[in-house]
Every structure is written in structure tokens, then in C-alpha cells.
């Protein structure tokens, strides 16, 4: 599944980042790299963007951008 589909309150693990160029670099620069754990903290009142906890800090990202991030359950089983 992709990050934008993860329900609030769930933790996932990053498998792959599908976009290219500046967006990919920006996402990775902020610490979203392969294998990192992401906790989906909340969704903004209007339904977008989403707030994540990554590497111990809070990050907000638009769902459209989060759709490029492939994630799996923390246990490791892909879905």
C-alpha cells in the first residue's frame, strides 16, 4: 500500500519511494528512507495534508506526495 492510504494511528515501514528528482530528494532529505518507521499521527481538518512522526519529529506531507511512498506493516509483511 502507499503512505496516503495508511489510517491514522498506525505505524508502517517504508519499502520504496517511487517519484523522481526534487520531490524524491526532499522526501528523503527529511528522513523518509527505505526501512524507516513512520507513525501516521493525524490528518488535517480538511482531509489533507497528513502529519507523520519520522525519526522522532513531526512532518507534514500532502497526500498526493505521500502516494509516491510505498509502505508495509511494521512486521514486514507487504500488503
Amino acid at each position: 500500500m502507499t503512505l496516503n492510504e495508511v489510517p491514522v494511528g498506525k505505524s508502517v515501514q517504508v519499502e520504496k519511494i517511487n517519484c523522481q528528482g526534487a520531490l524524491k530528494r526532499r522526501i528523503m532529505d527529511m528522513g523518509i528512507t527505505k526501512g524507516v518507521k513512520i507513525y501516521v499521527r493525524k490528518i488535517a481538518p480538511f482531509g489533507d495534508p497528513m502529519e507523520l512522526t519520522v525519526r522522532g519529529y513531526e512532518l507534514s506531507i500532502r497526500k498526493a506526495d505521500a502516494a509516491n511512498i510505498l509502505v508495509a506493516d511494521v512486521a514486514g509483511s507487504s500488503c
Partner: protein
Amino acid sequence: MGYSIALAGNPNCGKTTLFNSLTGSKQYVGNWPGVTVEKKSGDIKGTDDELVDLPGIYSLSPYSLDEVVARDYLLNGHPDTIIDIVDATNIERNLYLTTQLTELGIPVVIALNMMDLFEKSGDKLDIKKLEVLTGCPVVPVSALKNSNVDALIRVALDAAKTGGFKPLFHYSGLLQKTIDKVGALLLRDGIITENASWFAIKVMERDGRVLKKLDIPNETMGHIESITQDLERRLDDDSESIITDARYQFVTDIVDKAVIKAPDSMTMSDKIDRIVTNRWLALPIFALIMWGVYYVAVSTVGSYATTWITDVFFGQIVSGNLTAWMEAHGTAEWLISLVNDGIIGGVGSVLGFVPQIMILFCFISFLEDCGYMARVAFIMDRLFRRFGLSGKSFIPMLIGTGCSVPAIMSSRTIEDIEDRRMTIMLTPFIPCSAKLPIFAMIAGAFFPTQTWVAPSMYFVGIGMVILSGIILKKFPFFAGVPAPFVMELPKYHMPSFRSIALHVWDRSKAFIIKAGTVIFIGCTIIWFLENLNWQMAFVEPAESILASIGGFIAPLFLPLGFGNWQSTVAVLSGILAKENVVATFGILYGVADATENTGAVASQISQLFTPVGAYAFMVFNLLASPCVASIATMYRELGGWKWTLRAIGFQTGMAYLMAFLVNQIGSALFYDQGTVTAVVIAVVLAALLLWLLISDYHGGKTNLTYKETDL
């Protein structure tokens, strides 16, 4: 001349506060990612060594303006040492930047900030181990409490004296081998002489700026490209991601060894955020805060202070005493009028906004410093993105209902340059308090029973912001590079009084000086135009240069329904200050105090327009070029005439277009007048607007191209 030291670090790591402690100079402190855009420097306390404050950055990628500014300075400015501020409470992401800084061949000293907060959370950090693992001296400091800053200066200067630096940072086997190979190639062919691994990495990342600078011959480049592609094939990713991944792996490794994490617990910041950005409470809380800011700054305290300064201080005390003094000394009557009506009237009414600005910036800098502004963007982004703006555009628009000047200034909190430009261009569409008397006068004269007319201006203004936002995004100026909205939500914290005071003072001073000088000249010029004729003799306003210019320009406004010289002069005088539009009618019809006594003027002006023409007149005044104070502020915030003129041109063009549509279509509908040609033109223009609004045209570019930044 002493050493030159660069201060680098992530946004929100306390960098600007530390800069203040190290130099003692005045500086702006914010909590918004990327607040420090310009390069700032100062002498380190008690030495002649220079400290350069770099923009707050997360990385040295070529994609953000701030990052390009920072790395250009680090590479070409040849600082002797880099002080890298690392926020201990956010150590992983902060050390990621450290891995890039240490590659530049410049000694790096780590200033470990916010250790007190870090220890409060129960986590433990082994500083000695961190020094060994990073290869950099580590000095724990507290920027806020100003502790251990002297030790940091000492260590940094020692590092500068010693010079030279070998990072301990190594990548895993295959990647490091590839980097070494590429570096050796670059050295062998004489393309570079130093910093081999940094250049090798940049070339492998295909960093456009570096490739352009190095100008590598085709043969070498082909060789490097095949080596890089081999690596990419084997690791199944692009080189840039492979390297970013490796850096974070290195950092994770350091943190695993040097930091002992306490079990997670709710911090104060988490608790605040749970309420403030709560799904149901977020919007009510937001509305309450905005209402509070607006209520205090614009409608109550600020407005009393402004009225007092304009009417009592400048109107009675300064003007009264000065007039008495000038009369006693036999000053010519025209000069008294110039000083009173021209300069004090104009400059005074602008300086009257200073208390509003100060109160407003007190609130804004508090909200910014404490971390709430980032949440505003988070909450409002979805709504504003629909019409091409960002979540951060809300605040300027709200403040714009009071005055465009502080509104335009508050747009600084928007980090993306295109969003900021667009916000600055569109904010003046919101009816400011000075435009209200125009609507009151016209509505009173032409629409005494239709109470919806005056408030409808707010809807026209908001509608135009939305319409323009959607349309402008389709032009190449704005369609180019949408910034990815990947934004840190910094931890809440209590800002220091000092940083807020500095911020408010900086903004107010800039307003008084910059806007003041332009207004002073503008007022003087307009006063002369209004009181002199072409023979340079003093005359009544009706025979003045301004009136003759008005008469000359008037035909231009004929299609809009107000092609007479009186309204033309009123519109022109509105450029000085929008209050003047009503005041000008007062002068022209000899009604004193026209702003308050609108009835007498109303009966006169009802001869000038048809009701439709009068509505068009309101629309034109609402949207056209703002007053000189706003123009001066736009000039300052847009950084030059190019964008200022574009903005004024766009605003006035839109005003003309809208007033034209109102008058032509309105006249045809209600009075059965107007030529067929004009109506056809109006309908075609309206259709064109509609087409621009709904079409998928994106200025020849697709909407989702992120590219390297143009500096």
C-alpha cells in the same frame, strides 16, 4: 582580519538565537522553516573574527534556494570553520546535514543545542562517543540561556587555527569504492584539485550546478556515467537516493551507539498539538486566534492608537503648533498648506499605521516563534491550494482587511517565493479599512435602500483573489516550480521576550524608514499637482495640473462608466491614500470633512454616474493599484521594480476589466444602453476569463515538474 566562521544548521534548531548570543547583533528569530533567507553576518563578541549566518537548511541539495545559497557560500566563500548546530531533541535529521557538511574539507564543530530539553525527556547521550564517531569536536550549548557559548567560540577558533579536516564518515563497501574511483578520475584529468569525494558525489548525483561549473570533457563524463550506472544497476536505485540512504544509515548507526532512548512519553508539545490541530477543535481554535489578533490589532487597540496619532498627534499637536509657529514667522501661505495638507496629512496618515503594525507583529512573531504558524499552514493548506495559494497565505489576507501594508509584510512567513509573490499581488484585492468610506459614500448616494451593496465589495474582493489565483497559476510566471509541501511541524516552545521585541522593532523601523521616505516624496508631488497649474501659479484644485491630467485621462474611464475629470482625479488621488478618493470629492464640491459628512457629497456625485457606473467605480477603486504606502511595501517585499510593476499592472488591469464588465453588461441589462460592440467585447472578455478559469492550460508546463532552483 580574523577568521571567518560559518553558522549552519536545520531550520528551528535555535540557530538565529545562537547567532545573537555569539555576536550580540540584532537579528530576527523565527520558528518557520526557512525564515533566514538573506546572508547575515557579525563580529564574534570580543574578537575581529567574522560569523556568517547561513539560511536554515535540511540538506545541501540543489533544489531549494536556501540550500543553494548555503552551499555556494561554503564552497566559494572559504570559511575557516563551520559551526554546525545540532538540535539534540531531533538528532537524526540534524546529523544528516552534518554528514554533508563534513565532506567539504572545512573543519566542523558541532554545537549541541537544546540539551536541557533532551535530558528532560530522559534520553541519554554520550558526547565523547559522538565526537569519536563523527570526528568533530562537540560542544553542548544552550542558545536560549546563553550557556557555554564562550567554550564554543574557543573550540571553533582552535579548529580554524589548526585547519584541514578529514571526515571519519565512510560509506559501505561498494558505494565508497565507486566514489573513490570517480574522485580519482576527476583528479587524474585535472578537473578538480581538492575535495575529491564531495565533487565525486555531486557528479554521481548528476547535480546540474556542479556539472555546469566543472565542465567535464565528454570522454571523462562518459566513463563516470558508466561507473555510476553500474552502481545504480547493482543497488537498484538512482545514485542520489543510494547516497541519501547511505547517509541516513550512517547517522542511525551513530545514534544507536551514542544515544540511549528513554521509553516514549507524551511531551508538552504533543499535548498542545493534540488539542490545537485536533480534527474538530482545530478550526474553531484557529478562528478564535485569528479573530483575537484582528480584534486587538486592527479594530480596537490598534485603531484607537491610529486615530489618536492621525487626528490628535499629527492633526492637532504637530500640525497646529507648526502652523502657529510658521504663521508667527511669516511663512508663505502655500508653504503652510504644503506642510499641513501635503506632508503632515500624507505622512501622518501613514505613520498612523505604526501602532497597528507593532501590535500585529507582536502577535505574528509570537505565533511564528512558538510554532503555531506552521500549524496554520497545515490546517489551511487544503483550502488555499485549491486556488493556487498555500496554507500560509491566509494570514496576509486576513490582515489585509485592516491595511495592505502590514498584510504584505506578513507574507514573509511564506517560504516559497512564487506563493509569496502571488500572495503579495492578490492581498490588495481584499478591501482595506481605507476603502470603506468610498463604498459607504457611493452606496449611500446611489443605493440607499440596497444594504447588500457595500458588503458585496468583500465578496468581490475575495472572489477576485480566488479567480486570480486560479488564473495566474496557469501562466508561466507561476506555473513553473510548485514547491513540494513537505514541511516540518516544529515543537511548540515559549519564545523569548527579547526575540519578539527585536522582531517587532525591525519590522516597524523598516516600515517607518522605507515607506516614510517614499510617501514623503509622493505627498509633496501630489500636493503640487493639485495646487499648481501648468504656468506654476497657485489655483483651485479644479484648475490644477491634476485636474487637467484628470480631464486628459478621463476618456479612458468612459467605457467603465465614470469618464468625467472629477472621478478621474479622485481615482488618481486615491493612489496617495485611498481615503483621498472621498476627500477629493469633498474638495471638488467644497464640502469640508467629506469622510464623515458623506451626505452632502452624495447628492452632488449622484449627478456624475448612473448607479451601474457607480458600482463600476467602486469595483475599480477596490481592485486598482493600491496606495503608495502599499506600493512601497510591495517594492520592498518583492525585491525590486520588476515584480512591483507587474503586480500594479495586473491589479489595475484586472480592475479595468472588471469595472468594464460591470458597466457594459450592467448598462445593457438595466438601461438597455451601450453599443453592440462594447457588449460583444464584454461578453467575449467574460468568456475568455471563464475559459482561463476552467481550462487545463498550464503555461506550457506540466504542473508537477520539480526542478533545480534558478538562483
